[in-house]
């Protein structure tokens, strides 16, 4: 069975893709909850009273014009940027605003960056190894040993992202698209509860896009996924629910059809041709 | 005919101390050249071995070891800073070498293997203070120095000395600055204030090296005149002055055992030789150069007296050796390995020279252990048999720690 067939088999999820046991409490509702979040840079309001909830296991697409604040929103969730006001909760127990980046990552929020950033001096394999869910405290990392199981896991992801042959090359020499894939691979290795994926298919071919779509839909359910993308074909192929951001707050929310017929959305984002 | 006698020269030619030390290397080379022209010593030629310890103290020890162990030199002339001497000292003692140290220093040391041809505190600091007190009627004192052992010790000694002479505590201001200190504004302003309270004030400066130029500049610019608040320096000589615009400094003082301006035939000869050697009409001479001149001649005499360059023989032979100094008198090597020196006080002239304004009536013998420090007032040093002790305690009649060890 090829890995793709396996992946498209929705009712079975790979062990290695299953989220690590995390103490996130989702019994009382959404996994991610943003309320009245605002942030401004030198007086420019990048996020403006943003409210957003993501349910556990949901796959959500977020679209919106350039500069709408999508990446900034992810920055806030992952602890990179502190909002001026508002609250951000992960499950009902964790207030993300009180935590720093590694804590948030350890809790189970993984992120793929818009501009692919990988560890250029390390090999592709090592990039994945580091991302792998594990005890990431210092001494544990020092004494960590790579078991056969771990290896298999990395190998599988390598195959999935098509970089098996380049596994021992330094990540710095990868082409732009290859780095994109490596980032996705690192995200998978992390086994997060919530995946934040910023423009996953930029620079990919049609077919790769399909592959990515399959991958992301297969993850949803067990894991929650938030995708930001400008490629409408791709969004259409995966989206159940779409949120449109504009000038830092939600402009529209609904199914892809609802949204793409919204006048305002067409005006500020899709354009008449789409 | 025989193998040459090797003379090690251990002066920094690079790094911060090169400013002071590199001329001493040249002085030694000149002296050796002259000696060789005169037939060498015991009919043997002298061969200089120059190394560069690069103003790096551990490197001084390493280079001393190199000279003694690898080059097997018979004598070393070298060092300037105290710390470099301290670093070299154990090596010279261990390998039983000979070291001639040409710079004024804080005393409190006497080694069997080291000959101190520079001034001890009683050959420089104390007479200078006497002069200020008696001739100029100074009543308030600023002791300004660079923060290291020489100024610290000298100032400790002077403090005791002044207090003994009835100077009140609030009439002494002590100030230390780091090496190479260049921003003297507020210190000079403080001195100015301290000096403007009615009594005659003087500054005793043990400020070292590069810090002096900005110090004197600041004095000049803030209008502190030698007639109002004279500064007497122990580390500023002709060589240091050659790097300073001396016009604003005229009248400030320095205490040394030699000045280039001293009028004596020996000095004229030395200066002529030096200018000829360096090929520089304006080359200056200074006190440590004279110390090397004396030390070198003493060593030559001792070797000739002993009939060998062997360290132990020379060590014994040199005590009591008397050679002419450059100021028209004689210097004798004392049993404590220090020499006798006249003390001169000079005023700075606008041409970078000193004018002698006062001198001790006779020469003063260097005192290894100061009488003005509680820890050392009972100590004496005598390297002659049978005492052979660098720190003999006349109160307890015992030789200190170093003797135990020598016995081992």
């Amino acid at each position, binding site marked *: 069975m090829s890995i793709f067939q396996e992946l498209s088999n929705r009712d079975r999820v790979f062990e290695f893709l299953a989220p690590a046991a995390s103490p996130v409490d989702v019994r009382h509702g959404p996994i991610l909850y943003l309320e009245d979040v605002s942030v401004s840079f030198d007086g420019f309001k990048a996020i403006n009273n943003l409210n957003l909830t993501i349910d556990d296991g949901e796959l959500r697409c977020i679209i919106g014009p*350039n500069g709408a604040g999508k990446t900034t929103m992810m920055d806030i969730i992952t602890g990179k940027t502190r909002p001026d006001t508002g609250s951000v909760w992960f499950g009902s127990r964790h207030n993300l605003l009180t935590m720093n980046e590694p804590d948030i990552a350890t809790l189970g929020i993984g992120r793929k960056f818009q501009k692919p950033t990988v560890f250029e001096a390390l090999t592709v394999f090592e990039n994945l190894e580091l991302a792998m869910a594990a005890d990431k405290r210092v001494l544990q990392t020092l004494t960590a040993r790579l078991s056969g199981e771990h290896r298999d896991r990395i190998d599988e992801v390598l195959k999935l992202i098509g970089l098996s042959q380049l596994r021992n090359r330094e990540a710095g020499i990868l082409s*732009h698209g290859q780095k994109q894939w490596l980032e996705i691979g690192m995200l998978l290795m992390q086994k997060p509860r919530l995946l934040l994926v910023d423009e996953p298919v930029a620079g990919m*071919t*049609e077919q790769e896009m399909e592959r990515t779509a399959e991958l992301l839909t297969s993850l949803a359910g067990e894991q929650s996924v938030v995708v930001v993308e400008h490629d409408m074909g791709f969004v259409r192929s995966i989206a159940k629910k779409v949120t449109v951001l504009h000038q830092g707050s939600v402009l529209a929310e609904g199914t892809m059809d609802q949204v793409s017929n919204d006048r305002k959305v067409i005006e500020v984002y899709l*354009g008449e041709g789409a | 005919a025989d193998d040459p006698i090797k003379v090690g020269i251990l002066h920094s030619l690079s790094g911060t101390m090169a400013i002071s030390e590199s001329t001493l290397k040249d002085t030694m080379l000149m002296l050796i050249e002259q000696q060789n022209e005169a037939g060498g010593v015991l009919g043997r030629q002298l061969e200089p071995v120059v190394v560069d310890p690069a103003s790096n103290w551990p490197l001084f020890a390493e280079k001393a070891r190199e000279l003694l162990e690898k080059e097997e030199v018979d004598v070393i002339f070298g060092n300037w800073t105290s710390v470099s001497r301290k670093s070299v000292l154990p090596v010279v003692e261990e390998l039983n070498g000979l070291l001639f140290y040409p710079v004024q220093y804080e005393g409190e040391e006497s080694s069997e293997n080291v000959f101190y041809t520079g001034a001890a505190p009683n050959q420089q600091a104390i007479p200078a203070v006497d002069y200020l007190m008696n001739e100029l009627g100074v009543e308030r004192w600023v002791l300004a120095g660079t923060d290291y052992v020489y100024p610290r010790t000298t100032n400790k000694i002077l403090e005791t000395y002044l207090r003994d002479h009835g100077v009140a505590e609030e009439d002494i201001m002590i100030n230390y600055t780091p090496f190479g200190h260049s921003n003297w504004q507020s210190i000079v302003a403080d001195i100015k204030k301290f000096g403007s309270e009615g009594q005659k004030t003087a500054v005793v400066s043990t400020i070292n090296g590069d810090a002096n130029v900005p110090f004197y500049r600041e004095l000049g610019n803030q209008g502190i005149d030698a007639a109002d608040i004279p500064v007497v320096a122990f580390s500023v000589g002709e060589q240091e002055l050659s790097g300073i615009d001396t016009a604003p400094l005229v009248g400030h003082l320095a205490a040394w055992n030699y000045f280039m301006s001293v009028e004596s035939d020996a000095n004229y000869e030395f200066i002529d030789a030096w200018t000829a050697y360096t090929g520089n009409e304006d080359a200056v001479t200074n006190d440590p150069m004279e110390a090397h001149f004396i030390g070198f001649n003493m060593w030559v005499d001792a070797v000739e007296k002993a009939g060998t360059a062997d360290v132990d023989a020379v060590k014994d032979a040199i005590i009591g050796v008397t050679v002419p100094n450059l100021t028209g008198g004689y210097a004798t090597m004392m049993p404590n390995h220090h020499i006798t020196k006249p003390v001169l006080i000079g005023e700075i002239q606008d041409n970078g020279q000193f004018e002698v304004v006062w001198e001790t009536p006779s020469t003063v013998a260097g005192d290894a252990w100061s009488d003005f420090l509680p820890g050392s007032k009972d100590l004496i040093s005598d390297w002659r048999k049978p005492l052979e002790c660098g720190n003999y305690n006349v109160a307890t009649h015992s030789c200190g720690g170093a003797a135990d060890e020598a016995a081992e």
Partner: protein
Amino acid sequence: MLKVDKLNQFYGESHTLWDLELDVPKGQCTCVMGRNGVGKTTLMKCIMGEESVKDGTLSYNGGVELTQQKVEDRSRLGIGYVPQGRQIFPLLTVEENLRTGLAARKDSSKQIPERIYELFPVLKEMKNRRGGDLSGGQQQQLAIGRALVIEPKLLILDEPGEGIQPNIVAQIGEVIRKLIAEDGLTVLLVEQKLPFARKYADRFAILDRGRRVAQGEIGELSDELIKQHLTV
């Protein structure tokens, strides 16, 4: 306008471009396609001189041999470059980013052409913001704008639509066509997205593992070719 002939390029020991040949006719838009890592970006860098070539020729505008030209002079010859990954100057303001392009302009004008701001109004709005602070898509617009400042005769675009919102992508396509039509601009485009390529390009060339494996009018781009060279 540009003719690439027998181009070979190495990264250290690894041979990346193999005897590559490519024709970019004047006044048309040629689209280079290929899977990830086949060497598209490398080819563009070779043309711009950012990577050195082992052998082969790049003759530009009827005879100028680009490989003989200094990197700085290539833009002065009228080649505008929008690199992959934007490569804007992050600590310069938007306006300063644009002004860097003035160096290579023939008329040594000191003004940024108003047209750029008309095309990308967001750049005017954010004139005084640092380039690095812009959102991804804004940066991409800035990169394109910056290339247009030098008023190029040949415009090289390496995946220009990446990260830009759909209506502006379409607008960029229109602009390209307009410039081709009005100013006789030549465009060399790297693009993965078929609809965009089909809509705005005149010709295509497909790279695979460092070799050119197909080329022709855009209409000739068959599903079979796509299957063979563009799918994994």
